[in-house]
């Protein structure tokens, strides 16, 4: 349809209006309400009190920075493990023939037919101190200890500083995998892995595997071709996988609640505790806002950096082309 641009602009608006309204009503408004709650006090019976800065003042709790940091660190670990596991999985599925592909892709989605809480509860049994996973955990701890001793001093200090290792020796013999950080990471990876596999698989399915042959043909080893051609080729899928895993990991509270015990309290648990147990909605809102900021600020920075990089790329292409054209004219 040709016609006046104003009219087509209006049509565009009309088409997108419902989704805008939806987003505004069920996302933007609630987010603003949550933000507004943080500037209220709370009442004894669990209601929202008068306008006040008391909630933000309460937030200066010495526990919180460590919990926020741990949440980010554990979410990061879970994301890394998920991506590392999802990449070969997705690659393998994408290379299968159509029949196997649907069977395997289907079985990855199969766990979703069971309740999430039931599945986490099943893990509780598997992680029992008499189970085989406990033995694996002891081996893992010993390996970590050995690795830790082997690392240079500055790296050891760094790991302690970010909270990924403890200063003193843990007593390996009495450590249990249940109620440990390892259990939280393990089960989070288990439950979020499909969210990493699916977007990567979708991207890998569209990937032209002849490109890997071309790379091999030009002298690349298989792994080099995988790294330099396949990974950049499915970058979009990896980016969505990271978001699909990281965001739920940051908000998770069921897994740390049931499997992390007191050794792994994440921000999700705190929010849950403040909102349900302490009936302090403003405080829970403030924590949620804090966490959103902690995730959105780095994300925003990354996006800004990426767009700057793209702009530089475009500039570079322009100048390089100009240089080559001058060279050609000479």
């Amino acid at each position: 349809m040709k016609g006046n641009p104003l009219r087509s602009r209006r049509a565009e608006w009309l088409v997108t209006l419902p989704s805008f309204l939806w987003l505004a009503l069920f996302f933007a408004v609630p987010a603003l309400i949550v933000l507004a709650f943080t500037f209220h006090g709370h009442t004894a019976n669990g209601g929202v009190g008068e306008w006040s800065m008391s909630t933000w003042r309460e937030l200066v709790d010495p526990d919180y920075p460590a919990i926020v940091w741990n949440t980010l660190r554990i979410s990061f670990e879970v994301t890394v493990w998920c991506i590392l596991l999802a990449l070969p999985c997705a690659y393998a599925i994408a290379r299968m023939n159509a029949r196997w592909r649907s069977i395997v892709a289907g079985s990855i989605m199969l766990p979703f037919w069971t309740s999430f809480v039931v599945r986490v509860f099943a893990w509780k049994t598997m992680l029992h101190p008499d189970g085989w996973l406990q033995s694996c955990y002891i081996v893992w701890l010993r390996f970590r200890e050995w690795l830790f001793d082997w690392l240079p001093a500055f790296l050891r200090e760094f790991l302690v500083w970010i909270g990924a290792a403890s200063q003193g020796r843990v007593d390996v013999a009495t450590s249990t995998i249940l109620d440990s950080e390892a259990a939280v990471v393990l089960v989070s990876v288990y439950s979020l892995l499909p969210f990493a596999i699916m977007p990567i698989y979708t991207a890998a399915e569209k990937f032209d595997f002849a490109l890997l042959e071309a790379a091999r043909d030009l002298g690349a080893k298989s792994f080099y071709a995988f790294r330099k051609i396949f990974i950049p080729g499915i970058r979009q899928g990896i980016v969505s996988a990271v978001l699909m895993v990281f965001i739920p990991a940051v908000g998770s509270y069921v897994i740390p609640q049931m499997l992390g015990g007191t050794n792994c309290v994440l921000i999700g648990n705190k929010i849950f505790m403040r909102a349900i147990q302490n009936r302090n909605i403003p405080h829970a809102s403030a924590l949620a806002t804090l966490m959103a900021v902690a995730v959105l600020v780095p994300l925003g920075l990354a996006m800004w950096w990426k767009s700057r990089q793209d702009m530089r790329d475009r500039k570079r292409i322009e100048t390089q082309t100009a240089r080559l054209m001058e060279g050609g004219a000479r």
Partner: protein
Amino acid sequence: MSEFLVFDHVTKRFGALTAVNDVSLTVNKGEFFSLLGPSGCGKTTLLRMLGGFERPDSGRIYLEGRDITDLPPNQRRIHTVFQNYALFPTMTVWDNIAFSLKLAKKPKAEVEERVDAILEMIQLSDQAWKYPSQLSGGQKQRVAIARALVDRPQLLLLDEPLAALDLKLRQHMLLELDTIHDQVGITFLYVTHDQGEAMSLSDRIAVINKGKVEQLDGPANIYEAPATRFVASFIGDTNFFSGEIAAVDGDYCYISVDGFPQIKAFNDKALKVGQKIDLSVRPEKIRVTLSPPLPEKGASINVFPSTVKDIVYQGVYTKYWIESAGLKISALKPHSRFLLDQEPITWNDEVFVWWHPDDGYMVEAR
């Protein structure tokens, strides 16, 4: 002369299908060599075995005397121009071309110099910093060729490189490929199902059918002296006359075809009376006229009165479908002179078709 590339009794099966059946052939250094055949004939499998993507079930492949049969693709100095180009979409044209040089850890200055030089050769210097998706089909094709040639491989494989281009561009790229081959002096192995491409580019052609080499020869010989009925029919159009030798007269013989007058042909295979034979006569060798040829000419050549059944005007030539004593014969009449000063031949005209006995070629005796 030492043999450059040798296939030695190579066989490759996929399940019940024998894609390549005991193929032996030799390619000379610097040659433009074509593997020509219909789709599914095994030519691509031959190419993939050279690239290292398939392993033969039996037989060996030698390149400059070295057995390369079991080498992985990255250890062969053989590069491929893929049918769909297979340019890396996440890299610029420049980085695509530099890929093999960077892999070989060449110094930065050398990489730059060689990439810039080959970009100039393919006349795409101004496109160097674009991404493949921003290029046209012909440009992608040239980048694919440059990428495969930039580190000077021993052998360049081209897998139907022009199949994805439109006709005009294809003709242009044919010339360009020829020029590039002359410039770089690398052996080209070209796979195609298009006999026109193979004929116009190749020094030698191996015509392949059902996994076997039917004929290996220069383009002119393959056209003029096809070894088998398949080659004769696959390369260009032809008329077949199947019959048996009725009489031999010096260098010539007479072939009797059911219900058709005897045909005189040059007996280069020294066949004897009673042997069965397929005679191939190319349409452009057959003349079609309203009046018979002059008697002194007519005595020594084949002349058959016929009826015109169909006429297709093609600009450069006109194609006639003619029926003569129950046989369908096709003939081409090139328009080297202005059409209108001749008496036009029309549908259902009674005409004479005639050709010189030397213009028929006897393919395989049966």
